[in-house]
């Protein structure tokens, strides 16, 4: 089994905070155009334009999306009492994705009415339905069993995938291209508007989930045990499902399918500092932000001058990691 965590949370916080400027600098530097600090102060230069209109919003997006994926992963794992839970594996991302594609393909009228909110909103609703479904079906006395959870996840992923295929079939060439690229996951074609949308959702989700750390610890004791300690379990589950679906939905709406971040990041933090959610949630958000930013840098350079979709990079890292976890658990059992 995993050790209870040898590193003090404060130490990890300091290390991650120290790494942050480095990652930010790297992200801002990566690209065709090499810029010097002097360029940034010349408003009319190309470098200034690239910086303000491309690299800076992209950095903000990877930081925000990474933080959201990290923290929702940790929250979902605690709620399901299962370290293998991840929004992309259990079908939350797929549910959100399906709803968002439906909005892209069918919702022209709605989009023109509601504008930028339409996509995140539908993704949120899709994510909410998927989370509720997995939780309802998979929940047992000992939490949500890995098998049931993954099976329900497979079912939801399959339903969402076939739904998306059907929608693709009926969409015109332009929408089809839009859907295909969006599904691969990436944050390169978004501007400041996406940043503001994501920030608007990220703030309440992050603050809300951070405040649940202690309660999540008690839920890990078991639902009955938590209730005996005075936790209103049903209310707590509602809040957690709502906030997680909101966070995942927002990321999916802005960046498409970016899987495995919510699995890998909380797991690494837990290995380092132990499972205490009071520290795990904020540190998973911070590491998630850095991890996704680094993954985005890799996506930019690995087949330069072309770009790899971000979702492909995270899946290339996360897939094998997930397999390793399963093997490790089997040996441990």
């Amino acid at each position, binding site marked *: 089994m*995993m*050790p209870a965590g040898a590193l003090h949370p404060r130490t990890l916080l300091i290390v991650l905070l120290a790494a942050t400027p480095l990652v930010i600098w790297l992200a801002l530097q990566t690209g065709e155009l090499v810029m010097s600090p002097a360029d940034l102060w010349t408003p009319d230069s190309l470098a200034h334009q690239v910086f303000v209109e491309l690299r800076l919003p992209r950095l903000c997006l990877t930081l925000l999306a990474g933080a959201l994926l990290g923290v929702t992963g940790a929250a979902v794992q605690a709620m399901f*009492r299962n370290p293998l839970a991840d929004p992309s594996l259990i079908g939350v991302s797929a549910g959100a994705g399906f709803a968002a594609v439906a909005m892209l393909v069918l919702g022209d009228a709605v989009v023109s009415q509601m504008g930028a909110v339409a996509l995140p909103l539908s993704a949120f609703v899709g994510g909410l339905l998927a989370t509720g479904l997995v939780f309802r079906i998979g929940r047992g006395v*000992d939490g949500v069993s890995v098998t049931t959870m993954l099976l329900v996840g497979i079912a939801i992923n399959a339903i969402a995938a076939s739904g998306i295929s059907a929608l693709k079939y009926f969409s015109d060439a332009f929408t089809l291209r839009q859907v295909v690229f969006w599904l691969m996951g990436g944050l390169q074609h978004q501007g400041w508007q996406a940043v503001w949308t994501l920030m608007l959702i990220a703030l309440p989700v992050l603050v809300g989930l951070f405040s649940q750390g202690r309660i999540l610890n008690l839920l*890990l004791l078991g639902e009955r045990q938590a209730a*005996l300690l005075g936790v209103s379990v049903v209310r707590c589950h509602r809040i957690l499902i709502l906030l997680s679906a909101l966070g995942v939905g927002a990321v999916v709406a802005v960046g498409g399918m970016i899987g495995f971040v919510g699995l890998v990041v909380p797991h690494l933090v837990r290995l380092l500092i132990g499972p205490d959610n009071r520290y795990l949630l904020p540190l998973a958000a911070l590491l998630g932000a850095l991890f996704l930013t680094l993954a985005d840098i890799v996506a930019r350079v690995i087949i330069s001058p072309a770009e790899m979709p971000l979702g492909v990079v995270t899946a290339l890292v996360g897939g094998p990691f997930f397999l390793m976890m399963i093997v490790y658990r089997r040996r441990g059992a």
Partner: protein
Amino acid sequence: MLNVNVQQFCRAGRCLLQDIELQFAASGFSVILGPNGAGKSTLLKLIAGQDKIEQGRVRLDGTDIHAIDLSARACRLAMLTQEHPLNFPFSVLDVVRMGCYPLGLSDEASAHKAQTLLKQMELAGLALRNYLTLSGGEKQRVQMARVLAQLGEESQLLLLDEPLTGMDLRHQHLTLDYLRQLAQTGLRVIAVLHDPLLAAQYADHLILLKQGQLKAEGDLTTVWNDATLSDLYDLPLRVSLDAGIPRLEALADNLFGA
């Protein structure tokens, strides 16, 4: 003062408990005895307010247990459940500290309290160990310490569902002795046990349940006789009470009427 009145409690078409009427004074050590499936755990759950009774009521100082909100209830009532589904690698100390949650203690105070209880349960050396790596009996003692950590000034009830599971003989007696001391300080302890002899040695009130019904209740003088106990377990038993020391012997020779 605790009043338990269960006219009928059914789940999934089966009546688990019926015609149970019990009164508990503020302090004392009660033990519920009975064969498997007699409804012992169900009764504890009902007392803790974890299930709604259609016909009947549980009242703590005259107030319906369901009318006391969860956080206030957690200050007045602590319970050790039979299962412990915790499967994340918390340290032993952290698990015990979670018990302090309803009391709203500071970090230092809860750490101090947890350490004291770990010492009480003879677990002080394991404080920083990963809970998941402990043996079954050790885990049980940790959970026991966690539930004891929940006790505070307002505590009235301590419910324990098979608290001795997995414990060695020394820790069984240590635990029961500690519970008996607690029960003399204004706390009502109600435990489900499987060993009538241990119950007779430590408890001052025995409750005998069989097939969801109350067979007998009272102190040793009322329930400690061959007929009552043999009937309870469907097993020929010979019991005695010499100079206040309870003894019990299973008459294994003619067990199944061979």
